[in-house]
């Protein structure tokens, strides 16, 4: 009897433990199952490691979803942060993620200081995770207008030594990549043939690869850059903390806080309107602050590379408030950096890179053409206007007062204490009201004194919605008056006084079907003399099943040891890496 009771209790305990585990790990958020190891792993392959300010950095990004590497990552935005180790200055840019492999380029600003930099790539989800899971690699940036540094600041150690780090041993039957050069020694301006073959790649499997061929410099020993296999395997598991925070799985999140300028307190329930200058329709987004003064906008691709104008829906000026916008940067651990002197050989190598860049800026034509970006139509909630007026159809009128008096009887421009205001007649209410949404070139605009100066020469068209009230979020306007000017501009003083203007820059990424390899200069008659240190870059190489791929390019006039490095991933998510060296005499 006692044995039976024990068995029953034991079974009951097992049941509780099982239910408990289900509650913890089988939890789902809105029907989606998340796991501890769903945090994305990122690897970035760069075309080289030494750049000169103003040069274009080419890169290929490999991103997998934690251990479920076949899944396309949920994050839709990838951030890059380029930090100078000495000053901690960061340059941030972002790209849109539609798939787990993408390539793109970024033109380094010409004003960048020469120095040793760290490039980090992360999603917002990883940004709020732990530093070890953020992809990072080191590179050198020179500036043609600055002296080559004779010492560099660099982190004490980048290696992850924590015992929690997962190191995966690759089984023998895993796909492997082989890279072979046709010769070990080439002459200058000689043809190089590289052969890429795969072992153990399944017939239906595809290897997506990127290949860079650069010269080996005395600086190579300074960089502690991991290859893709090491990079993916050094992923650090975080016990019981799901990697969920700040997941940008819909669109770019523009978030921040509105604070009182005087005491720094939160401005709660503030209505914020986000707009872009547009000559066709207003494309406004509305948000409101919560108790902590925080707000958030989800901006789809329509707002990419546009100037974003934020302002409060009431008449608040920037003198009264502070915009605290979340900039998505990662904290820079600069305190651990140390100064390391460079050898004479290393400085000479850097000087040579600068000289080559100088030659290239004089002789080389731009290699990458302008890309046509995918455009997304913006949503305009503003229905067909009730009245459309094109002032050019009428006799010339010098200011808005004359326009309203002669052409638009529904509008009244009035003056109170030397300040103009507009009243609009609402058809459904049968009355004039001052509570209107006035838009100038698609942007909410409250400076009626400026509007009063506009005549028929300035205004392209005026659209009015006055048959019913207009609802924006929880705001209600009596009518909408939308003025479009010929210059499609918002006056600078207004922008400074009442708004926050942000540049929503998004770097371009390559199309899968586009040919992005570059190696052309040696074959181009216009390029002379050819001293390329980077002989070849192809971010979009593919090997199917047991096929082999060959790539051809020519060496430049630069002699030395060169290294061809291939990085990639199979369609089943296995990282691949191979390299081969050859000499140019």
């Amino acid at each position, binding site marked *: 009897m006692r044995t039976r009771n024990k068995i029953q*209790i034991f079974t009951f*305990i097992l049941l*509780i*433990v099982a239910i*408990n585990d289900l*509650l*913890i790990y089988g*939890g789902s*958020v*809105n029907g*989606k199952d*998340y796991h501890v190891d769903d945090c994305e792993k990122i690897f970035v392959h760069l075309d080289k490691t030494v750049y000169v300010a103003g040069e274009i950095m080419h890169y290929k990004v490999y991103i997998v979803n934690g251990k479920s590497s076949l899944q396309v990552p949920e994050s839709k935005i990838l951030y890059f942060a380029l930090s100078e180790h000495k000053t901690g200055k960061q340059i941030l840019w972002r790209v849109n993620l539609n798939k787990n492999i993408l390539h793109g380029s970024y033109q380094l600003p010409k004003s960048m200081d020469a120095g040793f930099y760290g490039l980090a790539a992360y999603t917002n989800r990883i940004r709020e995770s732990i530093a070890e899971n953020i992809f990072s690699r080191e590179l050198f940036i020179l500036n043609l207008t600055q002296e080559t540094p004779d010492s560099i600041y660099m982190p004490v150690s980048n290696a992850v030594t924590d015992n929690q780090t997962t190191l995966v041993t690759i089984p023998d039957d895993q796909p492997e990549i082989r890279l072979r050069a046709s010769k070990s020694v080439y002459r200058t301006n000689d043809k190089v043939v590289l052969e890429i073959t795969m072992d153990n790649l399944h017939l239906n499997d595809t290897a997506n690869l990127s290949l860079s061929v650069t010269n080996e410099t005395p600086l190579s020993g300074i960089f502690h850059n991991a290859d893709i296999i090491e990079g993916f395997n050094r992923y650090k598991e975080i016990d*019981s*903390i*799901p990697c*969920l*925070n*700040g*997941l940008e799985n*819909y669109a770019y999140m523009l978030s921040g806080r509105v604070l009182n300028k005087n005491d720094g307190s939160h401005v709660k329930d503030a209505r914020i309107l986000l707009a872009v200058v547009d000559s066709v329709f207003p494309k*406004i*987004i*509305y*948000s*409101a602050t919560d108790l902590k003064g925080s707000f*958030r*906008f*989800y901006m*789809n691709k*329509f707002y990419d590379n546009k100037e974003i104008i934020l302002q409060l829906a009431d008449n608040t000026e920037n003198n009264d408030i502070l915009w605290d916008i979340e900039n998505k940067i990662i904290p820079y651990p600069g305190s651990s950096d140390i100064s390391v002197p460079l050898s004479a050989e290393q400085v000479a190598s850097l000087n040579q890179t600068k000289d080559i860049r100088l030659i290239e800026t004089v002789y080389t034509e731009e290699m990458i053409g302008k890309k046509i970006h995918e455009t*997304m*139509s*913006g*949503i*305009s*909630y*503003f*229905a*067909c206007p009730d009245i459309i007026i094109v002032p050019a159809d009428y006799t010339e009128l010098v200011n808005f007062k004359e326009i309203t008096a002669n052409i638009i009887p529904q509008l009244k421009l009035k003056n109170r204490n030397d300040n103009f205001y507009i009243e609009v007649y609402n058809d*459904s209410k049968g009355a004039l009201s001052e509570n209107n949404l006035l838009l100038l070139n698609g942007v909410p605009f409250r400076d009626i004194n400026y509007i009063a100066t506009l005549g028929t020469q300035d205004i392209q068209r005026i659209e009015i*919605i006055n*048959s*019913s*009230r*207009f*609802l*924006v*979020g*929880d705001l*209600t306007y009596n009518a909408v008056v939308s003025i479009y000017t010929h210059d499609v501009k918002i006056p600078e003083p207004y922008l400074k006084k009442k708004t926050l203007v942000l540049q929503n820059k998004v770097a371009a990424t390559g199309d899968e079907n586009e040919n992005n390899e570059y190696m052309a200069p040696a074959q181009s008659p216009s390029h002379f003399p050819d001293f390329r240190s980077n002989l070849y870059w192809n971010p979009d190489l593919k090997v199917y099943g047991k096929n082999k791929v060959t790539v051809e390019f020519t060496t430049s006039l630069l002699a030395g040891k060169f290294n061809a490095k291939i990085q990639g991933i199979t369609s089943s998510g296995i990282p691949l890496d191979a390299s081969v060296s050859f000499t140019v005499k």
Partner: protein
Amino acid sequence: MRNTFICLIVLCIIQNVFAQTDHVKSEPDELYMMNIRKGMMGIEYINPVVGYKGNQYYNNWTHGEILLTNGERITGLYLRYDGYLDQLLWLREDFINCVLCKACIKGFNLYDDSDNIAASFIIKKGIRLPLENDSADCFFQTLGKGEYSFYAFRKVGRLRDVSTLVDDTRYYIFNNDQYTKIRLRTHDLLNVSFIDRMRMKSIIKSNKIRLRDNEQEFIRAISIYNQ
């Protein structure tokens, strides 16, 4: 033994509480949707036929979702379709009825109490309506989808000189870019230019379909024809 057992249960509860806290920190989809919903815009709805007899609405205020032309989807809205104006109405939190801009909507779905789609509408562009010269963009209810699609335009009309609204639903069959307006009659269906008359006739006969004024049977006939 009993003490151990109690301790184990208490531990499990504590563990669950902390596990839930982690999930609270997450960025659930609902937060995104709430943000989008709060930012909706439109024009206040003014009923043009107040005091008329009859009903101009396809449904009472029901939960629904709208699909925007830019591919975004907004869920958890209270929606109503006005057949007289052919407009989609949305109920704002402060109970103001609002007309959503037709130009930015691709379609909308209405849900029943069990959260199943009760009706699905899409915008059909450039539809030529009877007795009208211009074409219009109209909300069509999807009744059958496939190579041959069957739609209902839930129009509500007004009797001339009488303050009465009447149901004036019109039915359309689409095949790619071609479409035709039909009445719920066998004769009309068999005379559709892009439908194989003989095949449809045999479907109607073999499945004993009675088409006259029967929307459901019409849907069935077209669905079998699509197979």
